């Protein structure tokens, strides 16, 4: 499992909660071009992001938008899958069940529908995915609850993919 060094977590990723998303979604409608953001603040620029919908590359359409460009799954790793299972329970299971639709879609066939990279990008970069990627947008419209960013690391997202390999109907392992 993972080693955490501090007693209190001090997580300082730059991302925005749902209230901000709604607000920025509304703003996008109002602002024609880029607004007066804080230039020194990193983070997604929602107003401009929404306008780049049609700029998605075929690679992005296939593998999603985010830090992961491709994943070589390699041989199935049961230890990694166990780690993924534990993480899935803590970070994901409140909204996703394997075999049934819950707050979000069932995941038993997700790896037959999506590439591993897509799954990881959806975990790691959900805000941008639900705004820009046509498939993620469809899901947001269907489920209404936007995929939450649970701030997993890339390694943790990879472990969850390994867990999903083991649980998927069309076993890709």
């Amino acid at each position: 499992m993972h080693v955490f060094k501090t007693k209190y977590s001090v997580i300082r990723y730059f991302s925005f909660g749902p209230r901000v998303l709604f607000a920025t979604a509304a703003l996008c409608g109002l602002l024609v071009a880029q607004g007066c953001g804080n230039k020194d603040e990193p983070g997604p620029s929602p107003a401009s992001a929404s306008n780049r919908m049609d700029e998605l590359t075929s690679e992005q359409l296939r593998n999603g938008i985010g830090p992961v460009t491709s994943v070589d799954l390699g041989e199935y790793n049961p230890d990694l899958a166990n780690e993924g299972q534990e993480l899935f329970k803590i970070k994901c299971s409140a909204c996703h069940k394997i075999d049934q639709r819950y707050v979000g879609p069932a995941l038993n066939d997700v790896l037959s529908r999506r590439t591993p990279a897509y799954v990881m990008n959806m975990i790691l970069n959900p805000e941008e995915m639900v705004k820009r990627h046509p498939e993620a947008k469809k899901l947001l419209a269907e489920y209404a609850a936007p995929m939450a960013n649970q701030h997993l690391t890339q390694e943790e997202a990879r472990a969850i993919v390994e867990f999903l390999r083991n649980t998927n109907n069309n076993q890709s392992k």
Partner: protein
Amino acid sequence: MRKNTTNRLLIAGAALVAITGSLFSCRTTGSQSGPISTDAATAVYVPPGSYDEFYAFMSGGFSGQVTVHGLPSGRLIKTVPVFSQHAENGYGYSEETKALLNTTFGFVPWDDSHHPELSQTNGVPDGRWLFINGNNTPRIARIDLTRFETEEIIQIPNSAGNHASPFITPNSEYVVASTRFSVPIPQKDISISEYKGNFKGTITFVKADSPGEMDIAFQILVPGYNYDLSHSGKGASYGWSFFTTYNTEEANTLLEVNASRNDKDFVAAVNWKRAEECVANGSAQTMPADYVHNYVDERRIAVSEEKSGVKVLNPADCSGLIYFLPTPKSPHGVDVDPSGEYIVAGGKLATVIPVHSFSKMIAAIESESFEGVVDGIPVLQYDAVLAGEVEDPGLGPLHTEFDGKGYAYTTAFISSEIVKWEIGTWKVVDRIPTYYSVGHLMIPGGDSQKPWGKYMVALNKITKDRYLPTGPELAHAAQLIDISGDKMRLLLDFPTMGEPHYAQGIEASVIKDKQVRMFSIQENTSPYAIKSEDEARVERDGNEVHVYMSTIRTHFVPDNIEGIRAGDKVYFHVTNLEQDWDVPHGFAVLGARTSELLVMPGETRTIVWKPQGPGVYPFYCTDFCSALHQEMQGYIRVGAEGSTRPLAFSTGN
């Protein structure tokens, strides 16, 4: 005529376009370089989506809290509950926070908080913590500035009216406390008319630099005066702290007359380095004194420890510990300039502002230029320690802050103005009216060794006509004044919460990037936490029921609970499983006689609920969390007392 009107309209229209253009243009580097325009509106305008330049921490006065404003906009951005229960987030109601308000008097859910004080390193505010005093039940609180939460409160024993507090030493070694009201020490049943000689004051140094471990380092027993305000020495005067006194007459009734007779009272100069030596060499006596220390432990749960006994120094047993500097007349504020050489006292009934010299004070001590001794405390000669007097400072001078550019700014309460004067020449160079009756003033870092001398905030006691009237009580007025130029310039009025008695300010960059955005669910060590919905459960232990509940957008687990009985004591332990910034969930239940809970991502909070009769009680999320927020709800079925219905709980299906 018509043509003129048209022209005027055209001009007005052009002006409007220009103004609109400037309003909607992006704030660029100009925003960092200060009020660049003669237009005050431009100077305080922070465009939507942009940040202020400074955090300002305002005491809540009789609200007991701290409010945080942005400068220059004056926008209120946070209320930090400190000494008062805060139903808005459950502070002082939740099981995890209640203990912070424990004292030897019991649970005290209110206080009068006067002086916020930022922690310092090398005499400069470092943005780690904010301290603030409780006046009525003598206490000092520490607020963590990565979370903007009160994390520790220590009670001050042998004290009453903790006003001259919690002014900090330059490396946050100590925060101080003292007795505005002298009292019998130790307390006893004694006639008030026997005040003189029987009532005493204390000056207390509280160890401050170790979170969770604040403690009374030592107390100094002093004559039965009123100890009013303080500031620590710095730079040249590092190792000393200064306290004003009034009522050196030791009156116990009608103080407005009886405590105003002496031409001079004192500034008490305390050598705390010397105090440390005397404590170390055994000169202090241990007095029995009970007090309570409350702190948030590593589980994020507040705990109280009862303590007993403090080290007390008698000035007669520790030579060189304390000196009195005669100071006209009923001095209020005592403020030390950034170099540490000058000690400015605001004699509220005086016609001048006396400025004492630290180096002259040391010379006077060495040459024993004393005019007397009180209770073992040498009284230095006024002329031997005086650096100068500021003449014509306005009526009722109270408090002084510094801009780091050679100038001092002193409030004059009675004449409702701030006077700017030059250190060294003691000449008034500018004055500006305030609206109305200014008490403290605040320049960010203005009581430290490195002021950010750009803005000044006047903290006014009287509001009158500054805002739309709101019945008999009015929000207190703060006023933002530009001090970047030769002439002070009024920029903005803004309302404040409670009584913004004093304030501290700090450049935003020192704090803003250190903010905690969530707590890791894996690292949640609360014994009442659940790490996933699988662990959600309801357990009975006699009449106590513990509900271990989770929240995530957008449901509770469990959300259907049965088997509760009227008369049960139900603990809702709510864990927020979210791991993203700005996604707290709230929890409120019908019939609760406490407050809601507001649970931060990754955190566990607990509220107790006692259902009074059979029925079905809904609970819901109070903090609008997602598009399906209105769906975030649940039910609890409560049977009659003695019902044998077994516990059951579920979510979905």
